[in-house]
């Protein structure tokens, strides 16, 4: 499903951090994981995934490191940092509040009738 860009923009970093909080991954793995975990509802443009990862790296929320994958090939693995975890916790709380608020505004279901 294609989300409005601005709508996805705020959520995408939280999603990436959440996935990485469960274990380190390289880019392709991560894009696959996002699609799988969200049941293909969230499909980040794969091109935007890497700038997003670099931004998170710049903020020291994730850390990238070249390692040898199971296939025997070099892959750059991204793992969440302690700062990333703190940020994820905060964002999750905020997202929870946001969902609550949305639910209150839209009623029991925010799905249009």
């Amino acid at each position: 499903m294609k989300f409005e860009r601005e709508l996805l923009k705020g959520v995408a970093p939280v999603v990436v951090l959440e996935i990485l909080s469960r274990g380190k991954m390289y880019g392709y793995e991560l894009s696959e994981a996002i699609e799988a975990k969200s049941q293909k509802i969230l499909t980040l443009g794969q091109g935007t995934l890497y700038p997003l990862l670099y931004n998170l790296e710049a903020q020291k929320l994730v850390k990238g490191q070249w390692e040898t994958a199971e296939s025997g090939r070099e892959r750059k693995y991204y793992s969440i940092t302690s700062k990333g975890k703190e940020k994820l916790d905060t964002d999750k709380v905020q997202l929870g509040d946001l969902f609550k608020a949305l639910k209150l505004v839209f009623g029991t279901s925010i799905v249009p009738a």
Partner: protein
Amino acid sequence: MANKESKNPFNNLPGCAADYIRLVVKKMRWRKKVRADVQAELIAHFEDALKDCKTNEEKERAAKDLISNFGDAKTIGVLARRAKKRCRPLWQKMMIRFWQIVGITIALFAIYIGWFLSGRPVITTDYIEVANKMMKPKAADDSQNAAPYYEKAAKLIEPQNEQSFEYLRKSFIEASEANIVQIRQWLEKNHEALNLIEQGTEKPYYWQTLQGEPKDNNSMLSVLMPSLGECRTLAHGLRWRAYLSAEDKQYEKAFADLLTIYKLGKHQRGKSTLVQSLVGTAIEALSMNTARTILYRHDIGPQQLESFYNNLQVIVSNENFIIDSSFEKLTEYDEIQRSFTEGHFGFEHIYLKRLFTFRDSLSPNDSHVLSITVQNLPAAFDVLFTHPDKQHSRQMTDAYYDFWGQAATETPFELKGRDLEKETTALIKGNLLLKILAPAMQKVAVLSWRNKAEVEGTVAIIEILRFKQEKGRLPDDLQELVTTGYLKSLPMDPYSDKPLIYKKTQDGFTYYSVGQDFIDNGGKMGVDKDGKPSLWKSDDGDAVFWPVFQNKTK
């Protein structure tokens, strides 16, 4: 890293994927190492995405789908670059910022220097014409001008050098018999020139029509004051002629020459260059000094004294002793218009090329200011960035000359204790151009007061001697000369703001100014640094007008 795994990292990818990745990396326009890192990551991504494709066609199709999913290569490249930039460590960011600032500063400096070097002055006013109008009295016509006579006289005497006519400049007691012979020969040879000077001094006005040097674009500084040296020589010749006439008891002739010298000096003063005014002042002083010497050496009858006094009074009575600096002010105005750029790009700053033309004319103490040395960087900084502009420089010039115009009306006694040089330095602070151009007015102001005292003192001496001739005794005090009508008022001493000091002595009388030490030393003549008696060059004696120190062997 992945890109090091094989020689061609794109081996396992279809051509379209390889081209796409190359384009993304190219559009990043970032450091090679970072680009290689991103490239390896994208190759890995495409390899992982295409690993299950069995045929090349399938791979090609899947790659195209993936490229479509990735989006525009340029956008990805730009986003990746921005994000990677943010990844730099703090020290690197600071270093980059530092060098950016340095670069910007250098660029701005280069632009500023370009601006600074590109302007040119615009000459808007012909100050020589202004000066010529200023110097010529409004009511005068050419037949009343003494200048042609002086110029013609100057041309008649031989060209001068430092040694020329040295004997003419000797004092009366220094000249040997051989010198006297030389002097008589000179007087005979230059009789015609001296006659022209006499004719010139009969004219009521003196003005010159100045001309600038075309190669210096007719600047005021290029104006040559012709005949000044020759005028001095002729004044010295007249001085000797007066002295020798007196020695021959031809007092009327001697006094006539003294009056001619005085009028020649007076003509040189007025609205002219400072140098010319100073020469004029020196010539006036020469006349008065010679008069006192003659009066001291000879017993001259009361009628001749009265005649000399009356004739001298006519000239002196309307004399403004203050040296006029209007010409110097115009010179500075002219130099300001030539030393600041105006109009177009590079306007309104000092014009370095002009400034550097002054380098050779500066004193050793000041010339370093225009030298390009490391020690001189602060001065260079001032010139480049903080030097007052054209308008401010003109205001400073006005303030400078207003200050001296006011100071010149105050006697040295009134100005005692004030550091005028310091006060005027503050007025032109930071203005290198004016520092170079501004004349040392303190000495000029003092000279005019000394000249006044010497002239009025000499006039008083004539009247003291006449009083003695007519009454058979010296006056008890100078007030007696005023009450008996010999003098209109008592000459004042600029170094005490009291009347010049008159005292009767066993040999006659003494008459003096307390001199520049402001202390009455009882009429003890001051001496200069060489030990020679000197009127004004002593710090611990009086300026004694009478008795005349040169001729104590009377």
